């Protein structure tokens, strides 16, 4: 630097000679300031990715410099997120590069007090040893004389945070191992969605997509805290609002969603069916339905059999209840003239006949198998198109909901009549030819003992209003994990195979044909189920699967009842399940009755935890709540624990399926550090080593493993299997090895293979369609060239219904898809969800089957009759129509059916650690007098594993708290920002208190009902710590899908912190005694 430069660089010189007389601008800049370059500019590369938190699926740009991720921000090209991120997405740099992440394998020996280091290779070999040993020791060739081919000794949990390709390998390997207890977060979050939407419409996914919200005239958000749990998706609600739409939020709490809504309707938790049923009654009794839509596109005109008796006839019960077994015989719910062919029903019936009473098997999850194919019916159906026949669905519906009056709604939900009238008015005014309304829900609806029926109620209402398949209409199910839709589609679920093919049941099916006949419909695309099943078996077992051996159908392990995650916990406690994989799920905090989860794990021989940090499910043996109370002693616990650090979304390639069925590819930005590995790597190499060990085995139980196609190419220094190769297998191949482009190409003769039929087309033309990233600014509003959605890249399902029976749009304003007579094709903004060249006038010939049997006016192409179901004659096992029952624990007597408090067929699993409360004013019910509902906050994510360790998020919501009204605070002497102790029959927790008017006491049946809000993100580990809300919740389940009721329970609240040590148990037991809780409390079928 010369003297001249040096002087010129002196600010004072610049101030005196330049244009900055006060020296506060240009003259004052330092060399550092002048050379500032943002790291987004100096990065070596920008990698396209997708946010790993909720299922909105926001695009992310990952900036990499010197093989380090230096910045992550929103991808402006994404049509869903338009470059925006919520606080969690914005914190994903800290999530992926922060020091909370572990990069070393840890091992806890039996009875040891602490971890020790283990190298990855040794650890993986040890896991192989344990899997093979446990499998061999616990192999079941038969169960009660029937071939089952399986082991109940091993279970797996987790998948919703993982890629589709990872879920595919998990399910594939475990199935070949004979492991049936494979589950993920979808069970505890949205399994009832699949059952509710699937039985109504034929597919179990959200019927629309996020951006379409902008086209809505009225948006009812109920059972969802949209703005908080899915903030970036909420921009589309704001778009609609900007265009004049009315936004209504129905929720027990006034949340950040309510703050932006036009109307907040406080509701008693657990009464949404009564509320929605009231609107149905308003629509039907006032003649407000969209008559032509209802008549043409639903089963309103179909006549139901004479034997059917409604809850109105039987005091709250449907016909066919087996009071002893606590289940329904569904025969009497059928259409007139139809013989029973209900897949799930049949399986259940047979199961009960063979297994006898006493074993609470419930279904093998038949209802969820309607994720992409409706329930089967057969025989000729009878119709009355005048809708006047007393046994037609329309009239049954009308009678069923006649007592859901505004007064009843007020009595049940605590919603004043004028507010209720306002909601009815808004919905009716904003539905019809010219206008559409949309419902948005999340786990506020799904997590109930009647969760599937919650969803069904909304389906019925939206059908009556004619809001299905149309822009701005539909039912938006907001799912909460990056790929939880994917982990349902490519299920890590016990009862499903990819594409919602049911797992075969030990009792019902002898061979492939019988299996298929028991499930498929005669009409529509679900009639081709055999092609989907055979193609899957070809993808799994390759050349070994031939027509002669039934395509290795017998390689599949068999179910005997429910093996849901909650049944697995029972199996662990019983000593049946001995080995457990946790892959990105934290049941010790996130599942109902967290204590039972931990006690179950304490009975295991071995546990494998794959995660970023040492979550509660990994460390309960040394610092869990039971260690503190003395119920468990570390040195007594024999469980071996392996901790494997997981790779983050920036360190692996793969696809997430967002909440609107859209598969979005995220590219690896870098290799994972240390011993962190992707789950794809883990499953692939686990499977590879297992197969190497078994090479040459002649044991028949090893045949499926040896026949398994498991030859994925690996890449890079870590030998990472190619996710794209897995996606190609999922997509499927023709006989000549070329990638398929549509599920319509699948055959049942073994010439095609396809790992998930509904994803067929995602690799069309050998191109990864999920990786398409054409900016939304270069497309129309549908943005069909961004990523790929199932089915067949259709964004609004059942969109044939956006046109009238003649194929014309119901109105120009709401035109979406229409018949182009000249071209002889369906056309429009979206890809038609219909047979492309089937004219509206087409009527199928007598005896036609499959897609050929669909008429030109059958928009619901996965349904057995091509129609949406107002009344579900099959598919669900707790009733053909939704009806209001009180939650398992409730302070209120069922106002609608005082003789029937709860759903008679709910699964209430009473055990030492899972006791229920006296309810509905029975003696003892005042011991747990307050309604509790759990929820998410914007700043945290599920059980906290991805947020509580992040300082940037932890500081925003640093502590576990409860929200109570000023009235309840006064009643119980609770101090704002002080401490409170909450007690249920399951557990005792403490929380800081937020006293807020946002919690409103409701008046129900003339008395005040207080509700308490509890975010469920916390647990004892991490940077921000607290008790877990799930210590309070019980395992009480929806019988269709085994989802737990955590959105409405009861508890007591008292000021101050909870007792420590054994005194905590004393308090728990004193409450139980005071309430008179026994093993029978709350378990009755009737009453």
């Amino acid at each position, binding site marked *: 630097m010369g003297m001249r430069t040096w002087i010129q660089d002196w600010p004072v010189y610049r101030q005196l000679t330049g244009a900055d007389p*006060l020296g506060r601008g240009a003259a*004052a800049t330092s060399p550092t*300031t002048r050379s500032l370059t943002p790291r987004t500019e100096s990065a070596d590369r920008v990698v396209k990715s997708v946010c790993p938190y909720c299922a909105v699926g926001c695009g992310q740009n990952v900036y990499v410099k010197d093989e380090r991720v230096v910045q*992550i921000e929103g991808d402006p090209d994404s049509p869903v997120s338009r470059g925006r991120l919520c606080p969690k997405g914005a914190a994903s740099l800290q999530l992926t590069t922060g020091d909370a992440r572990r990069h070393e394998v840890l091992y806890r020996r039996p009875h040891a007090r602490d971890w020790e280091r283990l190298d990855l290779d040794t650890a993986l070999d040890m896991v192989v040893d344990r899997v093979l040993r446990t499998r061999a020791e616990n192999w079941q060739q038969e169960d009660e004389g029937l071939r089952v081919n399986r082991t109940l000794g091993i279970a797996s949990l987790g998948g919703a945070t993982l890629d589709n390709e990872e879920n595919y390998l998990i399910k594939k390997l475990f199935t070949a191992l004979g492991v049936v207890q494979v589950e993920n977060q979808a069970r505890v979050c949205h399994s009832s969605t699949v059952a509710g939407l699937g039985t109504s419409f034929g597919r179990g996914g959200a019927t629309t997509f996020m951006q379409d919200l902008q086209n809505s005239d009225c948006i009812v958000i109920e059972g969802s805290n949209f703005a908080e749990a899915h*903030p970036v998706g909420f921009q589309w609600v704001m778009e609609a609002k900007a265009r*004049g739409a009315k936004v209504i939020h129905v929720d027990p709490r006034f949340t950040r969603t309510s703050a932006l809504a036009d109307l907040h309707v406080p509701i008693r938790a657990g009464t949404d069916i009564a509320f929605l049923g009231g609107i149905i009654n308003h629509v039907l009794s006032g003649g407000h339905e969209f008559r032509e839509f209802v008549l043409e596109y639903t089963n309103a005109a179909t006549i139901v059999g004479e034997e059917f008796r409604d809850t109105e006839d039987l005091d709250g019960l449907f016909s066919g209840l087996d009071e002893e077994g606590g289940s329904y015989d569904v025969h009497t719910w059928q259409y007139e003239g139809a013989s029973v062919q209900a897949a799930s029903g049949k399986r259940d019936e047979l199961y009960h006949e063979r297994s006898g009473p006493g074993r609470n098997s419930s279904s093998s999850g038949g209802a969820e198998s309607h994720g992409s194919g409706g329930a089967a019916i057969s025989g000729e159906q009878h119709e009355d198109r005048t809708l006047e026949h007393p046994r037609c669905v329309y009239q049954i519906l009308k009678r069923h909901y006649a007592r859901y009056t505004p007064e009843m709604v007020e009595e049940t939900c605590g919603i004043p009549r004028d507010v209720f*009238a306002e909601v009815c008015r808004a919905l009716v005014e904003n539905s019809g030819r010219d206008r559409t309304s949309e419902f948005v829900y999340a786990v506020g609806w799904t997590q109930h003992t009647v969760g599937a029926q919650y969803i069904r109620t909304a389906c019925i209402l939206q059908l009556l209003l004619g809001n299905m398949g149309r822009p701005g209409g539909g039912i938006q199910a907001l799912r909460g994990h990056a790929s939880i839709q994917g982990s349902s589609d490519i299920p890590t679920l016990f009862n499903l195979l990819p594409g919602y093919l049911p797992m075969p049941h030990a009792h019902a099916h002898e061979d492939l044909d019988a299996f298929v006949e028991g499930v498929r419909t005669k009409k529509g695309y679900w009639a081709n189920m055999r092609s989907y099943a055979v193609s899957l078996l070809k993808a799994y077992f390759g050349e070994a699967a031939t027509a002669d051996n039934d395509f290795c159908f017998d390689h599949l392990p068999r179910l005997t009842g429910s093996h849901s995650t909650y049944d697995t916990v029972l199996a662990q406690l019983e000593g049946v399940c001995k080995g457990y994989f946790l892959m990105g799920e934290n049941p010790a905090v996130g599942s109902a009755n967290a204590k039972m989860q931990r006690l179950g794990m304490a009975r295991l021989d071995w546990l494998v935890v794959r995660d970023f940090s040492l979550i509660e499910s990994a460390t309960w043996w040394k610092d869990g709540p039971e260690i503190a109370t003395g119920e468990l002693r570390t040195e007594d616990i024999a469980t071996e624990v392996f901790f494997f650090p997981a790779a983050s979304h920036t360190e692996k390639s793969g696809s997430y399926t967002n909440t609107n069925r859209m598969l979005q590819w995220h590219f690896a930005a870098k290799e994972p550090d240390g011993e962190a590995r992707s789950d794809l790597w883990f499953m692939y190499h686990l499977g590879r080593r297992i197969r190497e060990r078994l090479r040459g085995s002649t044991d028949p139980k090893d045949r499926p493993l040896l026949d398994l196609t498991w030859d994925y190419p690996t890449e890079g220094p870590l030998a990472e299997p190619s996710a794209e190769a897995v996606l190609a297998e999922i997509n499927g191949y023709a006989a000549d090895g070329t990638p398929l482009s549509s599920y319509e190409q699948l055959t049942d003769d073994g010439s095609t293979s396809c790992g998930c039929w509904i994803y067929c087309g995602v690799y069309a033309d050998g191109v990864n369609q999920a990786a398409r990233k054409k900016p939304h600014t270069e497309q129309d509003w549908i943005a069909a060239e961004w990523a790929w959605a199932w089915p067949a890249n259709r964004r609004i399902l059942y969109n044939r219904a956006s046109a009238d029976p003649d194929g014309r749009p119901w109105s120009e*304003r709401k035109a979406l898809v229409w018949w182009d007579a000249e071209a002889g094709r369906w056309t429009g903004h979206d890809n038609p969800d219909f047979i492309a060249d089937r004219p509206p006038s087409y009527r199928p010939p007598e005896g036609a089957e499959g897609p050929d049997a669909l008429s030109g006016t059958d928009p619901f192409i996965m349904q057995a009759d091509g129609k949406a179901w107002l009344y579900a004659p099959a598919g669900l096992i707790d009733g053909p129509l939704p009806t209001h029952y009180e939650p398992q624990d409730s302070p209120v007597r069922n106002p609608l059916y005082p003789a029937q408090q709860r759903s008679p067929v709910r699964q209430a699993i009473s055990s030492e650690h899972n006791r229920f409360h006296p309810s509905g004013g029975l003696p003892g019910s005042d011991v747990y007098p307050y309604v509790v509902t759990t929820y998410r906050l914007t700043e945290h994510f599920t059980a906290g594993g991805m947020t509580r360790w992040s300082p940037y998020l932890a500081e925003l919501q640093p502590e576990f708290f409860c929200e109570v009204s000023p009235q309840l605070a006064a009643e119980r002497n609770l101090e704002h920002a002080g401490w409170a102790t909450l007690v249920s029959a399951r557990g005792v927790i403490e929380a800081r208190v937020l006293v807020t008017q946002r919690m409103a006491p409701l008046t129900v049946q003339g008395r005040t009902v207080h509700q308490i809000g509890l975010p469920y993100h916390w647990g004892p580990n991490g940077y921000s710590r607290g008790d877990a809300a799930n210590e309070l919740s019980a395992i009480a389940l929806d019988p269709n899908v085994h989802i737990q009721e955590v959105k409405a329970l009861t508890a007591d609240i008292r000021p101050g912190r909870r007792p420590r040590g054994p005194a905590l148990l004393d308090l728990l037991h004193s409450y139980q005694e005071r309430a008179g809780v026994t093993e029978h409390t709350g378990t009755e079928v009737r009453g």
Partner: protein
Amino acid sequence: MTDTSPAPGSLVGRNLLAGVEPDPAGDAGHADAPQRMGFFTDTSVCIGCKACEVACKEWNAIPEDGLELTGMSYDNSQGLGASTWRHVAFIEQNKPLGHAQTAVDHSDVDVFALAAQGSGTPPAEAAITPTTPAPEGAPSPDGRTELRWLMSSDVCKHCTHAACLDVCPTGSLFRTEFGTVVVQEDICNGCGYCVPACPYGVIEQRPGDGRAWKCTLCYDRLGAGQEPACAKACPTDSIQFGPLEELRERAAGRVAQLHAAGVTDARLYGEDPQDGVGGDGAFFLLLDEPEVYGLPPDPVVTTRDLPSMWRHAGAAAATLLGGLAAVFAASGRLPGRRR
């Protein structure tokens, strides 16, 4: 700048410390400065998600600021400071919940024509949400007649007349070519003069570090043509970034729209070039009095009176010197000549 503007270097006739100042960047020596850039934070569409807080911290690598449950609604970061450059306030109020004007007939709105604009409303219009108070006699959901939850993301105002900058003795604080006010951390010596100078209480010294820190309006990103991290992340476009002139126009339109819809509470804060700080580079649409949000109702640049103070000081000094001279002249002994 017009032709009549004074020559560079001249201090005459320019509102460099107070008053209307149309070109702060140019007057700070930035030749050919780009348009003045700023924030318009429309709190009527804020969902209180705090993405701005986190995006800011991630981009600027700001340390975590302590875990404390404050009990102040959902606000646990409490206010702007050295380690919180965006702060979302939460105010639970007994005021009527806003209601959309549902009676407005919008059946003639062609949603598809709107949709054809791309994948939604242009950002400029996206946040325009008509909200009105509930009509007389509207149903009160639960006996509560009044309840609303205000959320607002606060930030450094990047004042036209920035006292922090005026008092900085090291030249650490400077006016950028975008008209924003930025601390240069390689220069700041931690003297802390800027802290009491700020009329909003924004800037603060970081404990253990000593230097003063605040929002830079992502100066580094602006230089590369990128928008600030908070505005980019904001899910509902509550935080809008752009040329200040454009933002002021948009904001005026938004207020007019809200007023037309009956939301008489809506008002702008900090947009007026005539105000005590010459207008803010980051201004707000509020739904209540500024005090409700913790904002000073009538901020004044604390160095406003510097010129007159200097003039007074100068006059005093001259008087003093004159007096001294007179004394010495009278005595016939001049200072310095004493030997």
